[in-house]
């Protein structure tokens, strides 16, 4: 059973959903309040969706200064898996743990609807249970979901296979290269704009998102990253 830390910022509102999805996948998931500096020996960290600090300055722009982010960055540097969902992706970009940024949707309105994404790489701790080319139906719900990066970064992402999910059928928010999710050079930090935790049970209309969470429990899930446990801002290799 993996220990999964779900970070709670003031204004997080998908923290409960992420926690539940991780637990339903068999993980020992727990909350870590943004003021904490200790991830309590997390194997894996989730930055959930929501409106951290109301997104008042810019989505994710204030959350990255939260005390807990130093521990998250240390965990990531040591190769520990980190998943940012929606606002979590925005925070990871603001914190420099992922390249690029998220801008206002092309139509300038909040958009809540199903989206279809193709799994572009299985070489991450969160997509290893999918097949490359799998098309998943997963809800989106965001106002600032248009992924942008400079040309060089985008080319690099493509060349190194770090576009993890790509919108298919249509591009709901105007993201460049139809990007719905990306990962870090170490492939252990992963961000996704749609919400896999909202589609993990038949009663919700499908389970296309469930394997993102099951992946954390899979033995080989962390094979790409060194298995680490974070204690404060120190990391123990185990």
């Amino acid at each position: 059973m993996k220990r999964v830390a779900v970070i709670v910022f003031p204004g997080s509102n998908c923290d409960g959903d992420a926690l539940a999805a991780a637990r339903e996948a068999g993980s020992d998931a727990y909350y870590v309040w943004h003021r904490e500096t200790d991830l309590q020996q997390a194997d894996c960290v989730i930055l959930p969706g929501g409106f951290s600090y109301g997104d008042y300055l810019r989505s994710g722009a204030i959350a990255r200064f939260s005390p807990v982010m130093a521990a998250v960055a240390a965990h990531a540097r040591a190769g520990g898996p980190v998943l940012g969902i929606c606002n979590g992706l925005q925070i990871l970009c603001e914190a420099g743990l992922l390249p690029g940024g998220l801008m206002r949707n092309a139509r300038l309105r909040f958009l809540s609807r199903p989206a279809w994404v193709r799994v572009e790489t299985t070489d991450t701790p969160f997509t290893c249970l999918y097949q490359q080319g799998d098309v998943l139906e997963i809800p989106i719900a965001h106002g600032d979901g248009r992924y942008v990066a400079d040309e060089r970064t985008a080319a690099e992402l493509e060349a190194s296979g770090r576009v993890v999910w790509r919108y298919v059928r249509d591009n709901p928010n105007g993201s460049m290269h139809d990007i719905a999710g990306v990962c870090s050079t170490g492939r252990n930090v992963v961000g996704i704009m749609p919400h896999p935790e909202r589609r993990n049970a038949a009663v919700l209309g499908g389970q296309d998102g469930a394997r993102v969470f099951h992946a954390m429990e899979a033995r080989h899930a962390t094979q790409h990253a060194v298995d680490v446990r974070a204690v404060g801002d120190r990391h123990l290799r185990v």
Partner: protein
Amino acid sequence: MTRAVPFPGDPPITPELVRDHNLTDQEYGLIEALLGRAPTFAELGVFSALWSEHCSYKHSRPILQTFPTAGPQVVQGPGENAGVLRLPDGWAVAFKIESHNHPSAVEPYQGAATGVGGILRDVFTMGARPVALLNSLRFGPLEDARNRYLLAGVVRGVGDYGNCVGVPTLGGEVDFGRSYSGNPLVNAMCVGLLREADLITAAAHGVGNVLVVVGSSTGRDGIHGASFASEELTHASERRRPQVQVGDPFTEKLLLEASLELIASGHIVAIQDMGAAGLTSSSAEMAAKGGVGVEIDLSRVPTREPGMTPYEILLSESQERMLVVAKADRVADVQAIAAKWELTAKPIGRVTDDGMYRATWKEQVVVEIPGRRLIDDCPVYHLEAREDPAVAELRRGTPHPASRIPHPADVLLTLLDHPAIASKRWVYEQYDSTVQASTVIAPGGDAGVIRVREAEFGLAVTTDGNSRYVALDPYEGGKAAVVEAARNVACTGGRPLGITDCLNFGSPERPSVLYQFREACRGIADACRVLETPVTGGNVSFYNESPSGAVDPTPVIGMVGLLARADRAVPSHARSPGDVVFVLGETQAELGGSVLWEALHGFVGGVPPRVDLAAERRLVDFLVAGAERALFRSAHDCSQGGLGVALAEVAMSGPYDDTGFGLDVDLTTYGLRLAALELLFSESHGRAVVTCQPARAAAVVALAQELGVLAHRAGTVGERGGALRLRLRDARVEHPVDRLREVYFSGLARRMGD
């Protein structure tokens, strides 16, 4: 005689000042008699707020008292922040609907946003976690740029607030009519879940317990909002814009978490939202409910700006504030929980045993009113009610015969494009409908459905109302609002449990409006009795008038239903080729108040459809029983646009599907006396369309016979991307389903400039 002295700088109490406070001379006389002296300026403000229609229901109470409010499922009826109904396994549901019409008319974004904020607080102050939001919106015709601006602003305001707090918007309705041009309606509903044992109320008790204000500090915004809501909108209302509060959903989210933690902690005995009339109404109502007195030192209330007077602090409607009554020795614990959520919590007063509603500025008493009488002595008016003869005339009318009777196939496209009927995707796409990961049926279906993660059951929720019917026949219109809500809930498989109502009308001081109100309420009450759905609370919004007149009477019903199993929820759309299509119920020639007449002739008149309550009850029972036995693949009710529109909607599938299903329907032996336009577009109640697997068709027929529902086996579901084919005795309608989708899903977006 009570003692209270004016605060330095208070204006003298003059007849003009009294009238500015929306108090009549007679009411002022009562106040002087009650106090044994002239009121202070602050006291005048307190009376003005608490004796406004918004807070006192002084014009509506005698009529509201006729609602059925009891039932084995009722945990908390009207009178609290929200009604509460019992669910299985120790769970309960708290829910309430409220209007924010006037603020939205002058400042659509903030008006709508703060409407959502207020209704959320009403629910979480019961100890319930909000799990669903709904709304009901009315605007003038979209040809007018001002109305498009209002619609866009209101939708953005509703969305931004609910999205940020993290509560899914699961449903709602949007309709249009000329009467709403100067006075849009914005009604917001919230549904929350709690353990029944954790229910908390707003009754203050325990002498010596401490009043603590939690959340935002108090500013000069929204002063006299409750009084503003109790007068007609005029050209001068634009000047009321500073009275519209400004919402901060981020603080609301913190307040939500802090409040639920406070309730669970046991440190507090009561909690109340500081909504309309702010500190005044929250503290006075808490005291009155608990039968105790309270004393507040206004100088201790945290303010946003210096120099605020007692009057301003008492009447500010600054948002995101709560008043809690903490146990005397737990104030520090309350403050610690608030601090965790980055909120301030400041003790400002205490519960007393003298029954007095008292506010001081340090040592000086500025308000002292016997608490019970402040609430109870508000006069109740029994006003005259008389139908406007023009309405009776309108009921007798029919549209001028068109030079050429249009073909029903063309009419179907016209109706699918009509703003009342066209898909509201442009609206609900802006609301997060899947946060909390519990959405089983998202907006666009008959009712929204959510699961409860820790339980097997689910909840169905809807808001419904059709002002065209109410304007023409308020009694039938009142009934219609309830039965349509019940049909919507039942189509998803939910057993209707109870309702909350938002009653939007013009000025009750006009006999024609009070007649509409009285009759609509009588209709609601009769329907609720037959359906066994008690009224658990709601909101009366009078004075919805602009210089061009009163809005059409618009009672909106918010209903909650229980699905025994969430995973048996029934969607609205056809799902599989070869399935059998049944039309349930009877169609009459009832085009009064129909969208057909409005769309073709610009005529809203005639006798609206009659509601047969017994037949509705049978249909609801049938839909619920069929869903529980998993008989149906889909179920969809007939409402605006009648059977023709309902069948098209069954065929079209959801907004994000690639295409819909064909539908082959034979109506040549159904509704024999009716012409094609009547059969397809009459809005008779008591009807629905269900589809089922062929192997279940016999069971559907047997259940219908057993429960006394007319079930007409009308056809089959065709292939994906096929055509809707309707055969009638005197006409045929055929459209590729993709053509229908194009019209239906673009109608509203096109008008909004997309």
